[in-house]
């Protein structure tokens, strides 16, 4: 079991529910032959304040491309999952970003990641995205703000500190 993580950002808090952390933990690339995994991060925003609750992620799907160093989210099931969630809950769930694994202890974003995040930031009507990379010792979260070209590291979670 893992516990939920709460991030204090400017004027708001972001909660990563324990279920999504547990799911990501299951995809850590422990062995050299393990392939990257990834998906999308879905959540909601409190009515009474600006806190964000990241409640669901999608898992790698059949038609995604997974190698040791690459993850390509191509399968339409990710979008299907989101659309169903969106309509089932009267439009309160939103896409907040991408997650994927890296075969390194402390994850860093690559040039490919940066290009991808910049592209998303341009196309997404929302002001901000949060992207997660899952490493062997840590999970780290970057905030990508519209018109800012560089991601900002907002949180790092050490796996051994959230009692697996």
């Amino acid at each position, binding site marked *: 079991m893992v516990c939920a993580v709460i991030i204090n950002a400017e004027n708001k808090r972001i909660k990563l529910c324990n279920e999504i952390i547990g799911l990501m933990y299951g995809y850590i690339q422990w062995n050299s032959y393990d392939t*990257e995994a*990834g998906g999308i991060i879905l959540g*909601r925003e409190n*009515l009474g304040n600006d806190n964000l609750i990241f409640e669901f992620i999608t898992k790698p799907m059949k038609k995604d491309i997974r190698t040791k*160093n690459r993850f390509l*989210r191509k399968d339409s099931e990710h979008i299907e999952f989101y659309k169903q969630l969106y309509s089932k809950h009267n439009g309160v769930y939103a896409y907040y970003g991408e997650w994927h694994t890296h075969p390194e202890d402390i994850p860093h974003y*690559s040039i490919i990641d940066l290009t*991808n995040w910049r592209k998303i930031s341009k196309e997404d009507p929302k002001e901000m995205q949060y992207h997660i990379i899952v490493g062997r010792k840590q999970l780290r979260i970057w905030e990508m703000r519209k018109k800012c070209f560089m991601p900002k590291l907002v949180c790092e979670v050490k796996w051994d500190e959230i009692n697996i």
Partner: protein
Amino acid sequence: MSLQKYFKEFNEKIKMDYDVKSELKDKRDILLEILRNAEGIPAFKKFDQGSYSMYLGVEPLDKEYDIDVGLRFQVNCDDYAPMDLKDKIYDLLKDHTDYGATIKKPCVTVTYKKDGEAAYHVDLVVYTYADKDDTDSQLYLARGKNSESDETCWEKSDPVGLVNYVNDKYKGDDAKEDREQFRRIIRYFKRWKNKKFSSSGNAEPPSIGITLIAVDKFEVSKKYDYLEEKYIYDDLDAVLNFAKEIKDLFKFNGISESGRCLYSIEYDLPSELKFDENTNVFKKMSDNYMTDFKEKVDALVTDLEAVKNEADEVEQCKKLNKIFGDDFPIPEVDNAAKQQMCYIPPTSSSGAR
């Protein structure tokens, strides 16, 4: 903070219902008429004491509604034995309802049936004056169940002063919103108490104790919102801070024979009022009951802090529902989150290199 919205809904739910209140008043008035017309009962003036008179009534969980009525008889305390008037009232009212009446230490209780169950009762409290011609003279409460007991006595009392002491806190129009938060917090506490303590014996700390601590220690939690140009009240902070105040009142009181660390709480009736000595409002609770009280308050503080640390409003409400019971609303996710656009980047390409 729209958590406040759910606190307000909770307050509306637990607040004593107006219809019940007027039904109770009707019953009270019928009883008073009987006493007024009876022979051998001296003239008296009634006044409302207890939670209604302080605007702190809370809907009871699995127990009866009650209304406390003080009867100030215009007689000298020295001319009557403590049981004289209580016995007379009992005789007059014992056949008034199917449930009858009972003499209790502080009062005579008349119980009513509703839909075949005992649904509420009226507590009549007997007072006399030190000097019947001076209504400012010391009042005495007739305490005792029967004249044989050593405990039966005339006890110095100041019930009107007590009601005023509570109602004078946050007086006037300027203090209206502060006063409302003060009352809400006491109601939350009473509901918590009703849920967490057995009402039998003296396991449950008396409401007047909680109320008096609130009068002296409660602090309003509000913040000025410059955009809305008004104060935003924060009941979560207010109830948490008040719970901490109560927690701080407990003192270590040694170790019991079974090895339990015992704690005690003392809180005296206001010294400026005209009560007997040794007026600790919690004095009826045993060491073990006081220690139970402490442990429950400790847990309350911990649980409320967890609510404060929780980022998700729905989860906050779930936790508050566990603390205060099912009258605390839990919203659907759909109603507690903002509307979002339906957008997702069609594909995404990530890599470690």
